[in-house]
């Protein structure tokens, strides 16, 4: 697509310039739902800026063709969901569980799962208070997770179509999500509630439960597996009732598809984090990780994009090329930032993200294929970030610190977010062997010089500690 492109991060104008070299034929090659009229998504970032994504003017992006595909596809999601309905597909909102229910939904032909709460990035990409202000008018308090934007989006019906079904998780998921979903129900929607049990870790004095371990070594009471399976059965039955289709073989296939993507993403992370030079920017890597949730509403096309990203990264690693300075300091990022600019900023100030805990572990782990599908789903979900203890959540980061792979930890918090309020100090304590910076993500367009100075000081502290 481009010749002799040296990997680097470029801005929107540079991307527009580069985009001119792409032929019409290539542009037409990539499309979603196979549609040639409106399914084209290979647009430069400027397109989305014209349609209101104002932050794109300030962000920097990877300059690879794969990144162009990735961003075009991600920013096209809203239209894609509307188009899905227009061509007779069913759009199913799957809120709160972050990773498992979509695998079930995708077992039903022409059913497209999506996560309304992923709209939390929109106020930041748009540098806009429209959704947040509307959420406040509808009852969401201001100190709460930015995913409250989903409430406004449901009200406005302009960011995604009215879902045909809504599965909403509650229990040991984030309270803010659950409260937002409850308000959404108050708008006249009718979610099917799914209960997520708290994953109680084993203790020496417990005698009553049999415990199992997940693939990632997290212990859980065995009976919670059965409990989750019954909840997934409920999802399945609702889908059967809705679609009049009942074929469990499709579920096995759906799990295979999910695993294909999960393996790719795991390999991408491994390659990126272990390479001598960072082959891909942290912002794109975050978007890739979140793609595991539901493939941005076209799972097959997204997987194809991720394959291309994997090839790009592999090639760069082979050639020893990177997008960041060779002396960038390896850090872990805990809790995803709703403000994409922060990821740019942290890299610009000298860090390199080599480990993440974006509260979606359950969407990263492979699902077992040699056991009963619902059991496999339950066992994969039991790796979830937010349903257990803080120690379990950051265990992998702690290991990275112990092994010297991680020299600093950045935690992003949302004021009023229940798990941030409770976990951050504890995480700071658990990771105190390295510098830890905890920052509150400000409202859109709110990153100040003061915050930049704090991050710069954090970087300097890591540098000093390394010396």
């Amino acid at each position, binding site marked *: 697509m481009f010749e002799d492109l040296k990997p680097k991060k470029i801005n*929107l*104008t540079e991307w*527009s310039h580069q*985009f*001119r070299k*792409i032929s*019409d034929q290539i*542009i037409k090659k990539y499309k979603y739902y196979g549609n040639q009229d*409106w399914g*084209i*998504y*290979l*647009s*430069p970032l*400027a*397109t989305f*800026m*014209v*349609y*209101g994504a*104002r932050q794109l*003017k300030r962000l920097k992006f990877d300059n690879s063709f794969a990144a162009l595909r990735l961003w075009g596809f991600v920013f096209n999601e*809203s*239209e894609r969901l*509307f*188009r899905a309905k*227009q061509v007779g597909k069913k759009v199913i909102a799957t809120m709160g569980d972050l990773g498992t229910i979509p695998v079930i939904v995708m077992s039903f032909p022409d059913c497209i799962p999506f996560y309304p709460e992923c709209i939390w990035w929109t106020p930041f990409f*748009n*540098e*806009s208070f*429209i959704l947040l202000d509307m959420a406040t008018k509808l009852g969401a308090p201001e100190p709460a997770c930015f995913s409250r934007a989903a409430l406004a989006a449901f*009200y*406005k*019906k*302009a*960011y995604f*179509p009215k879902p045909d079904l809504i599965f909403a998780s509650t229990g040991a998921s984030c309270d803010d999500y659950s409260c937002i979903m409850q308000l959404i129900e108050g708008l006249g929607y009718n979610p099917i509630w799914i209960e997520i049990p708290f994953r109680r870790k084993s203790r020496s004095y417990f005698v009553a439960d049999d415990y199992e371990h997940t693939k990632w070594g997290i212990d859980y009471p065995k009976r919670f597996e059965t409990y989750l399976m019954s909840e997934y059965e409920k999802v399945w039955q609702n889908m059967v009732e809705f679609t009049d289709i009942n074929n469990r073989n499709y579920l096995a296939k759906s799990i295979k598809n999910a695993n294909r993507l999960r393996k790719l993403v795991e390999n991408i992370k491994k390659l990126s984090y272990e390479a001598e030079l960072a082959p891909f920017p942290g912002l794109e890597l975050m978007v890739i990780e979140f793609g595991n949730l539901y493939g941005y509403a076209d799972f097959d096309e997204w997987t194809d994009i991720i394959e291309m990203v994997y090839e790009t990264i592999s090639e760069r690693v082979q050639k020893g090329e990177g997008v960041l300075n060779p002396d960038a300091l390896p850090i872990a990022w805990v809790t995803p930032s709703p403000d994409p600019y922060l990821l740019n900023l942290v890299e610009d100030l000298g860090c390199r993200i080599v480990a993440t805990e974006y509260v979606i572990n359950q969407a990263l782990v492979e699902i077992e294929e040699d056991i009963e599908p619902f059991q496999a789903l339950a066992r994969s979900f039991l790796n979830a970030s937010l349903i257990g203890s803080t120690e379990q959540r950051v265990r992998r980061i702690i290991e990275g610190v112990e092994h010297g792979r991680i020299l600093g930890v950045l935690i992003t918090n949302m004021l009023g977010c229940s798990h941030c309020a409770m976990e951050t100090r504890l995480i700071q304590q658990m990771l105190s062997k390295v510098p830890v910076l905890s920052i509150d993500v400000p409202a859109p367009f709110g990153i100040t010089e003061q915050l930049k100075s704090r991050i710069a000081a954090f970087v300097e502290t890591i540098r000093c500690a390394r010396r």
Partner: protein
Amino acid sequence: MRETLTPRERFGLLVIDEKPDRCNIIPLVTSHAAEIARMKLKKYYTNGEAMARAQIAAIEEYGHDAISIFSEVGIIAEAMGSDFDYPDDDLPVIKRPALTKKNIEDIKIPVPKRDKRLPVYLEAIGYAYQSLGDKVPILAYVPAPFTTGMMLSDPKTFLIQTIRDPDHIKKIMEKSLQAAIEFCYDIIDAGALPIIVDPLASSSVVSPKAYKNFALPYERALIDFLHRYDLDIILHICGNTEPILDLLLETGADLVSLDQVDLSLAIEKLSKRMRIIGNFDTSKIAFSSPEEIMEEVKNMVKRGIKSKKGYIASTGCEVPIKTPPENVRTFINAAKEVGWYWE
């Protein structure tokens, strides 16, 4: 009825074939905005920030659904070498077309960030985008190659050459197209959606045949370029376009803004593939009573919202500069009264 959406959201739904809460209402408030901002016209069209401020003042005054960055159609021709006078209280007036001074081969493609008043537009877009870009779409009017071509020449000679020396005209067109593409390129990067305006291609000015041979191919080429960006492109041709309605489908425009056309006929012919914009008579908005405007706009909008692929309530052409604000308000109120899609 309560408005649920911002103009940006409303426009966003329209271009993906979804019905918004109500129809978009975008009367072509261009230089009339200077009047609202109590600004000298010369300041409006020579100072980007002033143009944006005037447009924002108009949005605040009327609450319509888009910002229109525009003064007159000579802007590219001027950057290519045509001379214009800048009267204090009127729009620029062409003094000497470029092709009366030099050959087409000697005319350079302008650099939009540098040449003549093109930077004024870009500055205006940047300012408006920063101020209201999250809520309101910014539309930047780009003269189509045919209109620019005619502004590069003496109009009479130009029209004669369409018959006597079509190759020469095509050279002019090619260059004008390149200039328009470069301008669009920077407009997009500044944050606006280009609208292609081709008033001099109207059937009030040229024959359908001349339109087909010299205007349409370059409109389409420009639209094709913009489609590479996956943008939804508006084509505006004022005056009478009834004789070329069928040809408009060939331009590839996603939205078509019409003036002196029977709206029902336009809907019948175009609305399966295009969204329709229009088409309230601009002399009526300037001179009719609010009561008359109210009634006629309602009738227009009631017909317009039946358009299959969507409809924008608008004026057929620019709102005349001296139009009483009361009339524009009435236009908007009338459209808001009857233009609802949602229950």
